[in-house]
């Protein structure tokens, strides 16, 4: 008999926490995980992104207590006073747990929006598939808390902030929040998600799962700003089910973490629905950033759009995987996918894997990819106008990313992204130029 121990499967960092579950869902997920383990390079979906970094740690369940003044400092840096994000209702998690004292009171949420914590009555929902996605199985087994937002039909809920902070402790910690957002028919919501954390001493692993359900004619805009600590690991999975005439428009900006993956599974279930899975990454020394998506056209006359731009300095590595599956029923599908990378150093690299799987015969699907350096003619043009070389380079990099961020419709989210981008760019380019 071949005994399989969790350590054979890359599960050693979580081993102590993956036993003795009481409820069936967690037990099943842990069972799935014990069978498959965490994916290695032979698993196609994880061929380009290695999870080896997890193996350097034993991740503990985080303490429930944290240094409140340190949290306030981070919160203020993320949400500057009198900035555009400050007035928005917010839900704040620290180390994977909702902290009511830091969150807006329930009464201040827009009418027709209900919030509840996952910890109160764990509801794993039907969308996530722990059997297929090991990181979702890990989340399912270890999820403690998360947010559950429900927007009643026809309610225009405006903007809500979801902030996930990590406060590191002496040892490594991991947290696996489980979120869900449900929009009733004709409802709308702009969810602005920010993931960030304190630098050191211990590393942390943030492994959120978000399930979005967008009913007929509803509109969900989901903007994510990932600026985790430098040695953090961020592996997120988003599911979006989109009914007819509904839209899920998303944008993710990846700036932080040593290893990050934003994986989206979006399914267009009714006709005339639309999905945008856009994003940008600005990565520097030793960072790996992965944007992976599976967009399923399961109904006719739907539109999917994907534009991802990567700027890589130093030894950064980006991964783009974009699969578009057009089912037989999905006639008149209109799909577009574009992945572009600006490589600012000879040691940076990107792996890009577009995949089209089409079973309908009347569809319009295009995809493309570009990889290159800064354009010498553009640089010369700027310099000939008196702008010094370093400033000219920064302008062109910013322009490249700004063009992607301009796809964000919501102006507050757009402004917040712009600010974060400029800040990151100034520090990243400065670090890179000092090094080279």
């Amino acid at each position, binding site marked *: 008999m071949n005994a399989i121990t969790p350590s054979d499967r890359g599960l050693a960092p979580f081993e102590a926490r993956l036993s003795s579950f009481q409820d069936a869902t967690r037990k099943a997920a842990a069972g799935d995980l014990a069978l498959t383990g965490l994916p290695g390079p032979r698993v196609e979906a994880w061929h380009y992104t290695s999870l080896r970094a997890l193996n350097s740690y034993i991740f503990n369940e985080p303490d429930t207590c944290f240094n409140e003044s340190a949290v306030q400092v981070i919160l203020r840096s993320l949400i500057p006073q009198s900035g555009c994000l400050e007035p928005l209702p917010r839900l704040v998690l620290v180390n994977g747990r909702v902290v009511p004292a830091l969150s807006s009171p329930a009464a201040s949420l827009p009418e027709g929006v209900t919030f509840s914590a996952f910890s109160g009555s764990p509801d794993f929902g039907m969308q996530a598939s722990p059997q297929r996605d090991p990181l979702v199985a890990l989340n399912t087994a270890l999820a403690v808390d998360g947010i559950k937002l429900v927007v009643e039909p026809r309610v225009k809920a405006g903007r809500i902030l979801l902030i996930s902070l990590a406060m590191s402790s002496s040892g490594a910690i991991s947290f696996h929040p489980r979120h869900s957002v449900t929009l009733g028919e004709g409802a709308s919501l702009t969810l602005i998600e920010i993931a960030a954390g304190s630098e050191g001493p211990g590393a942390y692993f943030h492994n959120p799962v978000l399930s979005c359900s967008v009913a007929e004619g509803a509109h969900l805009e989901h903007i994510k700003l990932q600026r985790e600590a430098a040695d953090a690991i961020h592996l997120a999975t988003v599911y979006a089910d989109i009914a007819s005439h509904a839209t899920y428009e998303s944008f993710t900006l990846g700036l932080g973490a040593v290893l990050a993956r934003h994986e989206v599974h979006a399914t267009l279930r009714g006709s005339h629905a639309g999905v945008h899975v856009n994003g940008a990454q600005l990565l520097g020394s030793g960072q790996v950033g992965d944007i992976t998506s599976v967009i399923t056209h399961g109904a006719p006359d739907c539109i999917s759009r994907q534009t991802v731009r990567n700027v890589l300095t130093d030894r950064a590595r980006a991964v783009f995987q974009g699969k578009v599956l057009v089912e037989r029923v999905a006639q008149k599908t209109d799909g577009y996918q574009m992945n572009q990378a600006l490589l600012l150093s000879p040691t940076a690299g990107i792996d890009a894997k577009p995949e089209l799987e089409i079973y309908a015969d009347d569809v319009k699907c295009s995809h493309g990819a570009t990889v290159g350096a800064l354009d010498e003619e553009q640089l010369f043009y700027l310099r*000939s106008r008196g702008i010094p070389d370093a400033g000219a380079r920064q302008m062109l990099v910013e322009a490249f990313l700004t063009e992607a961020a301009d796809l964000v419709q919501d102006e507050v989210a757009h402004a917040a992204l712009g600010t974060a981008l400029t800040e990151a760019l100034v520090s990243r380019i400065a670090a890179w130029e000092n090094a080279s």
Partner: protein
Amino acid sequence: MTDLLKISGLHASIDADGKPKEILRGVDLVIPPGEVHAIMGPNGCGKSTLSYVLAGREEYDVTSGSVTFMGRDLLDMEPEERAAAGLFLAFQSPVELPGVNNANFLRTAVNAVRRARGEAELDAVGFLKAVRAATKNLSMSDDMLKRSVNVGFSGGEKKRNEVLQMTMLQPTLAILDETDSGLDVDALRIVAEGVKNLRSPKFSALVITHHQRLLDYLGPDRIHVMARGRIVRSGGPELAKQIDAEGYASFLAEAA
């Protein structure tokens, strides 16, 4: 008075499939302060190469000769230093900069140049005032300031945008590389007026053109004919009229 620009025996080549191809073959040219000079010549004679070499484009290799600008060795300066020193090149084909807002670009450039010249930077209000005045003179819409630099601009709009930059950067020497090409009569008049407005004892221009019409507006002090990488003849405005009537054949024969 000393010369503003003095080019002596300038040779420059470009890499063509691994071999150097000589394009400038001993250019001699002097432009005194306050004068407008024109360079005319057949396609491929090296006019645009000369303008790029003067502006500091790196892919051209200067093999011999010298260029002094306001007494400084121009060839030793970075492109941005040349701009700060007062040199401006209006591009024949202005480059598109997707995602770079035209107004931001202009303000960044103006303030970079002002900083380098030891002048105070313009704040948002001061800049807006200056740019509004300039765009009005050039019949440019505010919308063109809000768009990405040259993206989706018509040929005429791009040329006007070059003249706008020139106006804002206040150069002592502007090189206009076929700024009149592809313009209709009205656009040509607007662009020419824009250049003419800058004429002063502290402003010189080197105008590269194929056409008499722009020169009629500007009233050049001297005309130079370029052929096969050299200036083969210099003269007064009457030279332009001779070219218009007879073409370049006789000058080419001289250069051969």
